[in-house]
């Protein structure tokens, strides 16, 4: 199934990964990317090389990706995704599933905008990225720009259209000592935007 899906994605979008600023390497990483479509997760999964795909877990919104049995099956069995709740329930920490994944040594893919944007530029990043970095200072932070995916399958459509897409990975960024939360998040956002024109 995963091979079939991979072939299909390549046929439709090319799913090309462009590594600028860092090589594809099996170290523990947090990839953070712009978010325009639910298919972003699929794209970035397909763009990673085979060796990294197994140790990298994308974040999936629980309400969307568990709606039907098929979506639930594909996110758990194929993507090995980590579910997060988009709406906060009670006191539990919404970042806890991510922290668990990082603790067990996996890399993760997150979309710090929190929700899909329709604008040219990504929305301001939410603070999750900052908290994770504070808790796991050794994990490498890699920015990524996903290009064109929203054209493949816009909101509310079911049939994808073949359009070439790419994922650009940039140079890792680091949390500077004493850096403020807002400043760091803005810097991370700019690092993602900068990859659009590489």
């Amino acid at each position: 199934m995963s091979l079939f899906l991979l072939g299909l994605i390549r046929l439709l979008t090319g799913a090309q990964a462009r590594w600028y600023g860092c090589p594809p390497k099996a170290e523990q990483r947090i990839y953070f990317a712009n978010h325009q479509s639910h298919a972003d997760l699929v794209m970035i999964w397909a763009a990673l090389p085979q060796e990294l795909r197994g140790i990298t877990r994308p974040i999936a919104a629980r309400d969307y990706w568990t709606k039907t049995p098929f979506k639930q099956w594909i996110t758990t069995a194929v993507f090995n995704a980590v579910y997060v709740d988009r709406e906060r329930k009670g006191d539990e920490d919404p970042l806890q599933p991510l922290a668990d994944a990082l603790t067990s040594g996996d890399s993760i893919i997150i979309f710090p905008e929190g929700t899909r944007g329709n604008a040219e530029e990504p929305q301001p990043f939410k603070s999750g990225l900052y908290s994770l970095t504070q808790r796991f200072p050794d994990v490498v932070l890699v920015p990524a720009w996903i290009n064109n995916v929203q054209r493949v399958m816009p909101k509310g459509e079911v049939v994808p259209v073949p359009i070439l897409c790419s994922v650009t990975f940039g140079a890792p960024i680091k949390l500077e000592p004493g850096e403020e939360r807002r400043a760091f998040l803005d810097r991370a956002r700019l690092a993602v935007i900068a990859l659009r024109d590489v």
Partner: protein
Amino acid sequence: MNQFLRSLTPTQQVGALFLIIFGILVIISAVAFLLTLREQREGAHDAAWHAELKNFRKLLATSWFMVVIFWVAWAAGEGVATVLFALIAFFALREFITLSPTRRGDHRSLVLAFFVVLPIQFWLAGTEHFDLFTVFIPVYVFLAIPVVSAIADDPERFLERNAKLQWGIMVCIYGMSHVPALLLLDFRNYQGKNAFLVFFLVFVVQTCMVVQHLVTRKLKRPPSAPNVSKSFNWRSWFIGIGVGSFLGGLLSFITPFKPGQALAMAFVACVAGSLGHLVMKALKRDRGVTSWGKGRLSVTGANGLLDRVDALCFAAPVFFHSVRWYFGL
């Protein structure tokens, strides 16, 4: 020699043709490889020479790719050939659409183009429904695409968006579908040899393009349409067309045409192909890119397939319909 070739069955003749082409390619590739072993000495001239060689080897790789595709298409039969060209059309259209901005409202039209129009057109070609094949896109799809777009309820740049999509369909699907259709034309006394016709078309058009390219580099004439193409000028265009047509005349023995007819058909194909290429250049300039593939910043995964097949996409329909009209097929 000629007697011997004529005594072969059509299949053996086509096989021999491929053998000759592969032989020539092997020799050229071997020479090009040996040349790369030459030591790079100092001086800008030598560096330029090596860059030129690299360029040439890239061109050679393309030729290998195309010849292998044609060989597979011929060896596997017409059904597979049709599917193969359908795939090429699919990838070419994917490149075209990627570089033409679409809006949300175009989604259904795009689905229609890729998953309905393309298969139907190639199915029509494969099953030899040539009457419907000829009018299906210009008449029926011409209406269907804007209807679907209009239902999507987005008037923003409506004409522009639809024109782009129609263009992509015409060039990539309609144009490309005429190549496998050539394989299925029924000439008297020419059964089983239609692969020669495709070879004739591709070879003549490619020769015309290559000669035009080489002459342009030698002559260094001012370009005739500098804003569209830095290289196009009328004199080298005439020379390219001349050489292509002349070669077509010489190759008449592999076609169902007499030498004069072959010359005329090659002329028509060369004019259509080279001017079509110029038109595609204008389109690329309009989009602000120099090629459909790499070299551009943020579009990737494309390998510039459209750059390689665009001349063919324009030449094939013109060639096909001229042949059909003239021979009353």
